[in-house]
């Protein structure tokens, strides 16, 4: 393998100062969710580690994750793509196309076998041999599995890659599912979200790039530093929840005053993501801040969670939700036992009357 340059060498080549390199490392450290005493390790890694080779594939998806990614501000997505990683193949960002481009993928896979990071967006479609998602003339599922075999690690970006995406909603005609089932035993980082927060996307790939290993993961293989808290527990509207001040409709006074959206079906209490603390686009806003209830887009199957996005509980047509059904059943069971009780009393009286009669008969 040829010698690949490190981040420091890339800075030198571009004539940037040591000072700006250190500043970049400090920014990277906080970006990756690490504590400040890790700065020296980040600097060390950035000086020595060759830039990681990244292959970025797109499957069954809308490319919205890339739309988010290119809006990453710290670091700028362009800085990351052009100088922090060696991005060899990317459907969306590559200037090349056609046969030579696909040929380059094969070359890269061969050349860096076992050493590249495979970033993947989008689900794999499996129905009818995967013909519903073709890439470069081949079913995506085949190409993906082949490339995944040689990857050092796989980074699944977006809820599609993690758990199938909206095209995987019932009845799932294309047989879409998350990529996790098609990578064998390769390590995987799941970065769910529809799309994920741009800085989370860059932060994860930088962590793998600099330290050569995956960030600490939770039980669903999500990086803990970005998916360690519920949105509800980090939400700036939480005081309104604790006080019991809720918006009931999107046009009422509570909604205008910025009260809690819990009653409007907000999925913040069920969703793990950095929306509440990192927010979007340099901390500008996030869905709840802009007045819309969280729909839990970082959750598996958020599209089929049972309840509509504006309700807390699933509704069963005219029967209503579980509270109405439960209350109805409780009333019905009370009536049932009352009836059974009345019949039991009648039965008992009959039995006692018969017993008295037979006893009376014996006495006579």
């Amino acid at each position: 393998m040829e010698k690949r340059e490190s981040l420091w060498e890339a800075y030198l080549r571009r004539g940037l100062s040591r000072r700006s390199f250190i500043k970049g490392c400090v920014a990277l450290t906080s970006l990756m969710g690490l504590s400040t005493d890790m700065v020296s390790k980040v600097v060390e890694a950035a000086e020595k580690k060759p830039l990681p080779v990244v292959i970025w594939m797109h499957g069954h998806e809308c490319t919205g994750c890339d739309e988010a990614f290119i809006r990453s501000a710290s670091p700028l997505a362009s800085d990351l793509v052009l100088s922090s990683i060696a991005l060899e193949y990317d459907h969306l960002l590559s200037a090349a196309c056609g046969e030579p481009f696909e040929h380059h993928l094969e070359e890269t896979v061969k050349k860096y076998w076992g050493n590249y990071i495979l970033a993947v967006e989008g689900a794999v479609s499996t129905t009818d041999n995967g013909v519903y998602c073709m890439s470069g003339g081949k079913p995506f599922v085949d190409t993906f599995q082949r490339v995944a075999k040689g990857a050092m690690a796989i980074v699944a970006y977006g809820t599609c890659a993690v758990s199938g995406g909206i095209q995987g909603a019932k009845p799932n005609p294309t047989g879409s599912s998350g990529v996790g089932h098609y990578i064998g035993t390769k390590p995987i980082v799941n970065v769910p979200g529809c799309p994920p927060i741009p800085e989370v996307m860059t932060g994860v790939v930088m962590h793998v790039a600099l330290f050569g290993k995956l960030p600490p993961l939770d039980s669903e293989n999500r990086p803990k530093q970005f998916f360690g808290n519920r949105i509800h527990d980090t939400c700036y509207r939480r005081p309104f929840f604790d006080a019991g001040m809720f918006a009931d409709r999107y046009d009422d006074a509570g909604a205008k005053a910025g009260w809690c959206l819990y009653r409007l079906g907000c999925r913040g209490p069920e969703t793990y993501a950095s929306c509440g603390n990192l927010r979007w686009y340099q901390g500008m806003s996030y869905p709840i801040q802009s007045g819309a209830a969280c729909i839990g887009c970082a959750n598996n199957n958020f599209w089929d969670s049972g309840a509509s996005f504006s309700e807390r509980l699933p509704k069963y047509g005219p029967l209503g939700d579980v509270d109405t059904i439960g209350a109805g059943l409780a009333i019905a069971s009370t009536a049932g036992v009352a009836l059974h009780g009345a019949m039991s009393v009648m039965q008992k009286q009959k039995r006692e009357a018969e017993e008295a009669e037979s006893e009376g008969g014996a006495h006579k």
Partner: protein
Amino acid sequence: MEHENMKVQKRREYYLFSPWLRIFHWVMVDSIIVLFVTGILIGKPLEIMALEPTQTSLLMNWVRDIHFLAAYAFCAAFILRVYGFVTNKGDRLFPRFWKGRFYADTIDVALHYMLLKRFHRSYLRNPLARMSYAGLYVLVAIEVLTGFAMYYMTEPNGIGGTLFGWVNVWLGGEMMTHLVHHYTAWAIVLFTSGHLYMVTRAEFMEGESEVSSMFSGSKFLVHYPQDASEVDPSAEKS
């Protein structure tokens, strides 16, 4: 002197329920009532009108704290239940699936409850009641697991998060944990209406201290119970 409302009858007293089980039972009753009411209020909270949260009494926070306190009280009382189970035979209420007689007894009681039989044989703890208690324990276990899974995930890396976090993964997401917790609560309400009725019915049909045994620990039976051997080893042969 004999009055028509008096009668002399020979009954055997069976001491069944240890104080630990009885304390647990009543703590469970209280905590389930509190948990259910506060739980419904958490699912469909009351609206507080104020200009700022600081001008309120933080009602939702109170409701949640009461819910958590009741949950802890319930779990703490369960330790007493386990102690009673270990030290006292009468506390062991698990349905005796491994005994052949259990099935015949179940049919006997079921036929009576369907009003097809005038009476059922005498039992210290009848087999259908035992099964319903086993069912209740399953429901309560679901509530405890899902409850702590939501509660402790404020700190996913803590001890609680490690002990209960898998529930959320296993159910396929925390939204499902919320729903299971909520639906199971209603199932417990349905158990309660059945349970209240059955013990009251046993009291007025048989008059053998079904209700008061949960205060005194003893039942007073006219007939010799089918399952006497469970508390009295000398009855094994008879």
